[in-house]
């Protein structure tokens, strides 16, 4: 009976992980969204472009066009109740444009990991990943440090690795552009280990060269 319970728990856990991984958009969808945000085609989303998109999202959520998002509109727009309650800083039971923009800008600031005041393609991709797995501000400085990013990436890797073999296939990492997968796969074995996954993002963010021929297998990142 106990064995059956643990099997059931593992099966449910596996299904949840698959569901979570499947919820991730494809590389093409991320590219489309990035290009829609980056209307100037400068290669990085500016705060002004982010603001315009935020206004459009607010307008889409404000179904009755009264310039507020109430609890029902929030629910219909996919805003979780917890987020709604935190964002409603004056506790009047609805989100004003100011409250909505405050959180949207804070998200922009967090996603701007290299602190360049813009979001490039990699930062935007990480933002989408972190929307799925969350982030813990361990040192309470309101910024994503590399150690905190590593924790989030490890969580993302575990969710993406649906067959639990300790490495990602191109299909499991389907949210990544093919070129990025190949760049991160420094030993060119067609798989991404956790080490390659984290090292790839770190190099992309810091503009560092990738270490050639990283170890195979499911080695854990330092």
């Amino acid at each position, binding site marked *: 009976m106990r064995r059956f319970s643990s099997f059931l728990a593992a099966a449910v856990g596996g299904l949840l992980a698959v569901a979570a991984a499947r919820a991730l*958009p494809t590389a093409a*969808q*991320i590219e*489309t*969204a990035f290009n*829609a*945000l980056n209307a100037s085609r400068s290669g990085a989303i500016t*705060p002004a472009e982010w*603001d*315009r*998109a*935020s*206004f*459009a*999202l*607010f*307008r*889409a*959520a404000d179904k009755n066009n009264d*310039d507020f998002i109430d609890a029902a509109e929030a629910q219909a*727009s*996919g*805003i*979780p109740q*917890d*987020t*709604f309650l*935190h*964002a409603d800083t004056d506790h009047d039971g609805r989100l*004003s*444009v*100011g*409250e*909505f*923009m*405050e*959180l*949207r*800008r*804070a*998200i*922009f*600031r*967090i*996603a701007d990991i290299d602190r360049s*005041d813009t979001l490039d393609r990699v930062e935007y991709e990480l*933002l*989408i990943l*972190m*929307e*799925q*797995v*969350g*982030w*813990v*501000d361990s040192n*309470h400085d*309101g910024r994503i440090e590399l150690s905190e990013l590593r924790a989030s990436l490890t969580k993302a890797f575990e969710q993406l690795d649906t067959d639990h073999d300790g490495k990602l296939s191109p299909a499991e990492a389907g949210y990544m552009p093919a070129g990025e997968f190949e760049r991160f796969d420094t030993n060119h074995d067609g798989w991404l280990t956790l080490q390659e996954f984290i090292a790839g993002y770190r190099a992309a963010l810091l503009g560092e060269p990738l270490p050639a021929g990283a170890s195979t297998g499911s080695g854990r990142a330092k």
Partner: protein
Amino acid sequence: MKTRSVLALAAIMGLLAASQSALAATPKIDARAQALVAALQAVSPDPLGGRLGLAVAAANVPAIAKDSDRYQVATQTTRAEYERRAYIIWKSSQKS
């Protein structure tokens, strides 16, 4: 007299044509905003950032860096009013 009538008719036709093209342009602008929203919703179903947004909201991360004056305004009330006005201007730009 006849020339004047023809000119008046031409002016009316011109005005009608201009108003028609203005009317046709309106849905194009709205359609662009709708396409943007659709593209964003395809990758982020929650406009407030999913689990990252929740973490940011719970941690009360400020939207403005202390060392940045990009959105610097005197008080929270002023900022809210600034946002509201900016939004209304944006909204009206979607209609004209």
